[in-house]
C-alpha cells in the first residue's frame, strides 16, 4: 500500500511526501512536530522570543497570502489590519475590561470590515496602482490612530497591565506564548489548506489567473476578491491581538508601520506565493535571520542589518521568483508544485 493511497476526509489526494494541494504531507507533519518541540524544549529567553515571533509572523504571512497569493491582491498596507485588530481588542480591554479572548473577535471583525472596504474601493485598480493605494490607506489609518489620542493613546501608546492569567491572555512563560502563536499558525495553515480545496478557492485562483475567463465561467470577481481580502484582514487582525497580548504595548508608529506591511508581504513572497507551505518557510527563514541580524549588528553600525537584509531580499527575488517553496519542490520532484 503506497502512502499516496491513504485518504483523509476532505483532502482528495491523501498523503504525500512533499507539500502539495489537497494533501497533508510528511514534510508538513515533520515540521509541525519540530515546532511543537520548539515550544516545549528549554531555550534561552532571547531565542524563545525569536520562536514566538517566528510563529506569529508565519501566521501573519499565511494571512497575507490569502489575498496576495491566492487572490492576486498584492497589499503593502496589511499593517493597518494588524493595527486595527490589535488596537480594537486592547482598547476594549483597557477602557472597558473586555477579555481579549472576546475582544479578539471584535478586532477580527473590524479588520475584516476594513479589508472588505479596501477591496471594494480599490476594485478597479490594477498592479502598482493597487499597491500604492494600499500603502496610502494604511498610512491614513496610522496617522488617524496617532491623532486619536483619547482612544489609542496617540504617540505615547497604549499599555496592557502585565497581570498574567488565562482569561487576560497574559502569560508569564514565553513557552505559553509560543504555544499560543503556534496555535494561531496552525489555524491559519488549516484555513489556507481548506481554501485551496474548496469551491471558493478554485474561484479565487481562477480570478487571479484570468479574470475574463473566470467571469465567463460565472464567477463574480468583485465578490470573490472582497471575500479574500476580508478573510486575509480577519486573520491578520487576530494576529494583531495576539501580538498586543504578547508585547503588552502598542504604538501606532511601530504597529501600523510601512516596514511591517513590507515584512508581511515579503515573507510570503520569499517563501512562495499561493502555496500553503511558502509563507511558513518564508517566516522560518527570514524572521530569525532578521532578529539575529538586528541583535548582533544593530549596534555595530546603525542600519547595517537592514542593508544586509535588503540586499538578501533583492537577490532572492531576482533569482528565486517562485520562492523557497518552488525551490523545495524542484529539489524534491523536479516540477513546480501544484498551487
Amino acid at each position, binding site marked *: 500500500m503506497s502512502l499516496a493511497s491513504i485518504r483523509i476526509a476532505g483532502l482528495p489526494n491523501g498523503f504525500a511526501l512533499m507539500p502539495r494541494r489537497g494533501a497533508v504531507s510528511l514534510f508538513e507533519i515533520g515540521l509541525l512536530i519540530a515546532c511543537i518541540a520548539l515550544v516545549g524544549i528549554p531555550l534561552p529567553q532571547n531565542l524563545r522570543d525569536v520562536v514566538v515571533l517566528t510563529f506569529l509572523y508565519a501566521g501573519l504571512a499565511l494571512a497575507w497570502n490569502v489575498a496576495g497569493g491566492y487572490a492576486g491582491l498584492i497589499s503593502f498596507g496589511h499593517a493597518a489590519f494588524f493595527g486595527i485588530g490589535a488596537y480594537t481588542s486592547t482598547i476594549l480591554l483597557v477602557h472597558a475590561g473586555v477579555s481579549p479572548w472576546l475582544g479578539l473577535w471584535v478586532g477580527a471583525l473590524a479588520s475584516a470590515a476594513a479589508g472588505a472596504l479596501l477591496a471594494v474601493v480599490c476594485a478597479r*485598480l490594477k498592479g502598482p496602482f493597487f499597491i500604492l493605494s494600499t500603502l496610502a490607506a494604511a498610512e491614513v489609518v496610522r496617522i488617524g490612530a496617532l491623532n486619536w489620542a483619547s482612544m489609542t493613546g496617540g504617540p505615547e501608546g497604549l499599555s496592557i497591565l502585565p497581570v498574567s492569567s488565562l482569561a487576560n491572555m497574559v502569560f508569564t512563560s514565553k513557552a505559553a506564548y509560543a504555544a499560543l502563536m503556534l496555535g494561531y499558525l496552525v489555524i491559519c495553515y488549516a484555513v489556507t489548506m481548506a481554501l485551496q480545496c474548496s469551491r471558493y478557492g478554485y474561484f479565487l485562483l481562477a480570478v487571479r489567473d484570468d479574470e475574463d475567463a473566470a467571469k465567463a465561467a460565472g464567477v463574480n470577481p468583485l465578490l470573490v476578491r472582497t471575500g479574500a481580502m476580508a478573510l486575509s484582514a480577519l486573520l491578520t487582525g487576530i494576529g494583531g491581538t495576539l501580538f498586543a497580548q504578547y508585547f503588552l504595548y502598542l504604538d501606532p508608529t511601530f504597529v501600523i508601520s510601512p516596514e511591517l506591511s513590507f515584512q508581511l508581504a515579503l515573507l510570503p513572497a520569499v517563501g512562495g506565493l499561493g502555496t500553503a507551505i511558502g509563507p511558513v518557510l518564508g517566516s522560518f527563514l527570514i524572521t530569525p535571520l532578521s532578529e539575529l541580524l538586528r541583535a548582533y549588528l544593530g549596534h555595530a553600525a546603525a542600519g547595517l542589518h537592514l542593508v544586509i537584509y535588503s540586499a538578501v531580499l*533583492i537577490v532572492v527575488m531576482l533569482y528565486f521568483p517562485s520562492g523557497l517553496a518552488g525551490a523545495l519542490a524542484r529539489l524534491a520532484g523536479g516540477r513546480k508544485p501544484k498551487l
Partner: protein
Amino acid sequence: MTTLGQLVFSGILIGGIYALMSMGLTLIFGVLRVVNFAHGEFLMLGMYGAWALSTAAGLNPYTAALIVVPAMFLFGGLVHRIIISPALDKPHLVVVFATMGLSIFMQNAALMVMTADLWDVPPVFGSSVAIGPFYFKAELLIGFAIGLSCTIALRWLIRATYLGKAIRATVQDGEAAMLMGIPVPRIFLITFAGGSALVGLSACVMMPLFSVFPTVGLNFVLIAFVIVVLGGMGSIEGALLGGICIGVVQSLSSYYVAPAFGQMFFFILFLLVMIVRPDGILGQKGAATIGIKD
C-alpha cells in the same frame, strides 16, 4: 489678499520643482511600466551628491548639477542593468519587491555612511527677489525655471527626435517596435537612466531649499506619487500640471490647516484620485483599470 497671492505663487514655484522631481518617475512608468519604489532614495542620493560637492569643492548646487546629473544617469543605468532588467520578464511582484528592497538598502546605506544628521548647503543667493508685492527666494525662481525648461525640452525630445519617436513606439507596442528594429531593451535602459538623471537635476535644485537626511526621500516620494497619479502616469505635461496643483495645495494647506493632518491629507488626496480618476488628468486612459501591459 497679498498673503493668499504669496501662498499661491510660492505654491506654483515649488510645484514646478516638484514636477521636475516627478518627471523621472512618470517617464519610467510610461515606458517601462514599472513603478520605481526607490525613487525617493534616488533623490536623496542626488541631494547628498550636491551637498558633498558643495562641502568638498565649494561648488554651488547648480554647478554641481553638471556632475550630479551625469552621475545619476550612470547610476540609473547601473540599477537598470543589475536590478530592473532581470526583473522585467518575471511576475510583476518581483520588480516591486526589488525596488522596495533597493529603497531600504539605500536608506540604510545612507544612514551608515552619512549618519542621521540633517545636512544643508549654504544659500546661493543671499536675499529674496521682489516681484510686485511678493517676495520669492531666488533659488525657488531658478528651480521653477529649470523645471519648466525641462518640461519643454522633454516635450520637444519626445515629439521631434528619433529617440522620442522610438520611445513612443515602445510605449504603444513593445513587440511591434522591436520588429521595426527599435532596440527596445536599450530604450528601456536610456529611459531609466534618463529618469534618474532628471531626479538628480531636481535634487540639485532642491538642495538649497531643503535639508538632506537618509529618509528625506520618503517625504518627497509621497508627493511625487500623488503628482504622478494626478497628472497621469506617463505624461510629462501631466507631471507639470500635477506638480503645480500639488504645490499650491501644499502651500495653502500648510498655512490654513493643522500640520498634524498635513500628511494624511496627501494620502487621502491620493486615494480620492485613485477612486475618481485613476488615470489622472492627462494620463493614458485605462492604465490604472485595464492594467498595464504585463
